[in-house]
């Protein structure tokens, strides 16, 4: 049955973008805005292509790297991220698994203990719940428990966060879950450069790394710099990127929500309301709190934006860390979290729209936060 559900989710992808464009003009604008970026060298790549090239380059560079997961080979990937890799590397390195997440995740972790560098794909991170014990108890902790005797150089990857119209069990963000676990590194790319650089860094990292991709971003094109096209391009895990400089307020975000934050920043600048600084976290763990602190000291205001649930979320952690840091004294207004609503994801489109942050909500919260002053 779960196979049918998974396939159903896959079938929906090509229609997602059109559906959104048709029915959600704000979201459509955000996506189109991204599409309108021009790179100097004119090379654009979808997030899907960027991930695919990262996998191919790392598999060419190191024959201990292999890809394992459901439908990664013959089917060319449920979301076509692994397209062509079976033909290029053969069935000993691109391995289709049965639908047994707990088993194949454990198997991939065991192979990492014994010297391989697996890339373990989850068709979506929702299904990794079946295997979370292997990720947390086996992969993340064994290096520590063994006093450094056993390494676990594994990459877990797949689409995370809300998709479109797939209901509660297939739409949630696991950034806070995995971000809380010592021993793991967790990255959450937004655009194509992030996707390529972070996935390559994850594969090269000698620790277990969780790569949280986003289904709705796979088909979106972004410019690729000359550097990002190189085989040697990696993005350091644990470093955030200031995507847009500003002076009046800081928005910290990750994954797809970065696009909404960028669109809101552009909107408010055009309206002459504020110059908004946008930080793309890129890494959830280690969390680059220093970049956030530096920005808050400059702008004196902070909003966090994520697709995950509010309670114990990434934004909650950032709020707590800012409270505990010297940046607290620089705040002119309370920090605000913009998050997914505290409900399981509903199916109906009008309800689903209300469950996740978008450009409009972010713009609204920015204006409200700018109007506030602590003690005023």
């Amino acid at each position, binding site marked *: 049955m779960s196979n049918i559900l998974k396939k159903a989710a896959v079938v929906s992808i090509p229609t997602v973008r059109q559906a959104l464009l048709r029915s959600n003009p704000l979201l459509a604008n955000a996506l189109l805005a991204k599409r309108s970026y021009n790179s100097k060298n004119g090379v654009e790549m979808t997030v899907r292509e960027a991930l695919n090239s990262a996998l191919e380059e790392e598999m060419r560079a190191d024959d*201990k790297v*292999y890809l394992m997961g459901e439908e990664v080979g013959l089917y060319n990937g449920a979301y076509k991220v692994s397209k062509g890799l079976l033909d290029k590397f053969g069935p*000993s390195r691109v*391995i289709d*698994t*049965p639908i*047994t997440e*707990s*088993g*194949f*995740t*454990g*198997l*991939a*972790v*065991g*192979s*990492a*203990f*014994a*010297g*391989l560098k697996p890339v373990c794909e989850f068709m979506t991170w929702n299904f990794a719940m079946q295997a979370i*014990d*292997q990720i947390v*108890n*086996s992969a993340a902790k*064994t*290096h*520590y*428990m*063994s*006093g*450094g*005797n*056993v*390494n*676990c*150089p594994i990459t877990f990857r797949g689409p995370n966060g809300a998709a479109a119209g797939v209901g509660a069990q297939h739409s949630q963000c696991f950034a806070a879950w995995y971000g809380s676990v*010592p*021993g793991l*590194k967790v990255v959450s790319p937004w655009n194509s450069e992030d996707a390529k650089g972070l996935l390559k860094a994850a594969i090269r*990292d*000698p*620790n277990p790394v969780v790569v949280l991709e986003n289904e709705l971003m796979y088909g979106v094109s972004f410019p690729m710099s000359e550097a990002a096209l190189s085989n040697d391009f990696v993005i350091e895990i*644990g470093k955030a990127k200031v995507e847009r400089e500003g002076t009046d307020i800081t928005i910290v975000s990750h994954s797809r929500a970065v696009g909404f934050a960028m669109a809101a920043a552009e909107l408010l600048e055009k309206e002459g309301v504020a110059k908004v600084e946008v930080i793309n976290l890129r890494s959830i*763990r*280690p969390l680059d709190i*220093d970049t956030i602190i530096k920005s808050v000291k400059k702008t004196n205001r902070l909003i966090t934006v994520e697709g995950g649930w509010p309670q114990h979320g990434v934004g909650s952690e950032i709020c707590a860390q800012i409270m*505990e*840091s010297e940046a607290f004294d620089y705040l002119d207004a309370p920090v605000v979290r913009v998050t997914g609503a505290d409900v399981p994801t509903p199916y109906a489109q009008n309800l689903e729209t209300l469950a996740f942050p978008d450009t409009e909500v972010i713009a609204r919260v920015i204006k409200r936060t700018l109007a506030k002053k602590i003690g005023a």
Partner: protein
Amino acid sequence: MTMLRSPMLAASRLTLARTAPVTTRPMAFLTARAFSSSAAAARDTVLRLPSNSFESYNCDPPSLDVNLSKDALLNMYRQMAIIRRMEITADGLYKAMLIRGFCHLSTGQEAVSVGMESALTDEDKVITAYRSHGFTYMRGGSIHSILAELLGRKTGISKGKGGSMHMFTPDFFGGNGIVGAQVPLGAGIAFAQKYLHPNAATFTFYGDGAANQGQVFEAFNMAKLWDLPCVFVCENNQYGMGTPADRSSANTDYFKHGDYIPGLKVDGMDVVAVYQAVAWAREWALTSGKGPLVLEMQTYRYAGHSMSDPGTSYRSREEIKKVRSNNDPITRLKEQLIELQLASEEDIKAMDKAARAEVDKAVELAKKDPEPNVDSLWEHVNVKGTEAPFLRGREPSERHHYNR
């Protein structure tokens, strides 16, 4: 290889040196004879296992004739004696409140780890669950490093950070605390062997209590599908914690649980039978196309499940006593050695005494060892040199910065 050779690994590995000249005589209930054809073979003892040593499922069982040198058999005895002594010592240390938390003893089950190791090479890999002290010793961990780990010392095999359930050596992957989770890990180690070194196998141990976990069957499926050199070994000590096998398993023939994977039930109280089964299984796993196997070692745990379990609420004292007096793996080998005239009563006593002395010496050393450096709290969260810039302690001012 992702692990480092450690000085804590002592040279405890059994070598099957077939060098000692042995003269053997036919016995009343043990058939033993000396080869006369070649000088080398003449050094081997051929033991005839009892006919009920094996029961097979979809395969031909191994031969009941076992070739082993006198040295190998004496080594098996020494090793079982050491593990028994080490476990009894751990029991005492726990009751003296020097060992914390969980501690699972393998008294009664010594033939399994010792018989297994006698048939393996360093290239072969082993993984098991939390009842791991004997396996750690057999896979190269020194007595001192194991006891020091139990005592939470810096010199412990996991630097005092793993404890009873988490001990590792370069060819032993623990020591895992989540029931059944080590089974797919073992299949993955076999996957890596197939990928890197086609001439070695992985022995993946689990208890009868773990045998019904879903991921055990998931691992069976992939191991068969991909022809992995993996031998799944169900160490059936009759009780999953306090639940007898027949109260937890619809099918208590664990060697048949693999369905499409052939299986073998083994008298796990006979170290020679275990040796023969493991040697046979290793050959099987390394023969391309045959795929994995499921072994069931019929054994018995004398102690409770863990230290908090007296082990008497779900079974009778008489039952334990009966196994101890009729089927103890150490006593059984002792009787064989004496019957075969490979050792005298005095030799056995000397080996027992030596085992006791070796363990006693190790425990005295371990007790004097220091606790881990407090800075080691922060070590090995990530691989050295790839850590986060800092990690937080209990409050914001307790912050550990890594030098990178």
